[in-house]
């Protein structure tokens, strides 16, 4: 699979320790939920950031996605907590 840009915001960014990285996703990682599971195994910061995967939101190429959204063709995948703007 092609290289993707991963972006983290708010407390996910703080727990992971950086706001942006590029990654080559291994075969078999085809949905948002599968990507989250894979990221959780990358280290302590990731494990803490994704400790409650149900509350983490994701956007693919700047559009909101769901856990079962396919990653095919994605260039930029962002993870963040529930939004608190307005």
């Amino acid at each position, binding site marked *: 699979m092609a290289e993707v840009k991963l972006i983290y915001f708010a407390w996910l960014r703080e727990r992971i320790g950086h706001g942006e990285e590029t990654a080559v996703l291994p075969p078999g990682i085809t949905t948002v939920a599968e990507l989250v599971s894979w990221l959780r195994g990358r280290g302590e910061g990731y494990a803490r950031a994704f400790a409650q995967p149900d509350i983490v939101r994701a956007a693919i190429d*700047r559009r*909101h*996605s769901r856990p079962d959204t396919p990653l095919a063709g994605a260039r930029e995948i962002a993870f*963040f907590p529930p*939004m608190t*703007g307005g």
Partner: protein
Amino acid sequence: MTAAHPSKIVRVQEEPFDSAALAAELSAGRTDIGAMVTFTGLCRDENGALAVLELEHYPGMAEEEIGRLATEAVSRWSLIGVAVVHRFGPIRPGEMIVAVVTASVHRQAAFEAASFLMDYLKTSAPFWKKEHRADGGDAWVEARATDEKAMDRWRASGQVLPHK
């Protein structure tokens, strides 16, 4: 002027803004507007506890998502115009955070569209608030269950945005 295009203004910026000037900008040169609603959200403090509110945002997606919501509001309420300005960065108590202006032929559409836009901005526009307290502590603001519930009434009334 006949069948002019709806006016749409979307801005995500660090600088303070003037909501009265925004409303004037939206209505400038038009004679077809019968009603305008301006909503302004301010940074609120309780008993001197808050020093600064820091707003983090997702550059690019913030503008795009607000643009999608604005387009949805224009289409659903046949608005003549819509303007949304949302700030990011450090904001002090008393300063404005967000403004929504809706313009329509009659008042009901403008009121409802402004309410819809604020409900969706709170739960769908990629912004995150962190409170920096006067005592030196800080904490991310948690999303409110009431904000999610507020969106349900727009879904229940038959309209669902494509990404939800």
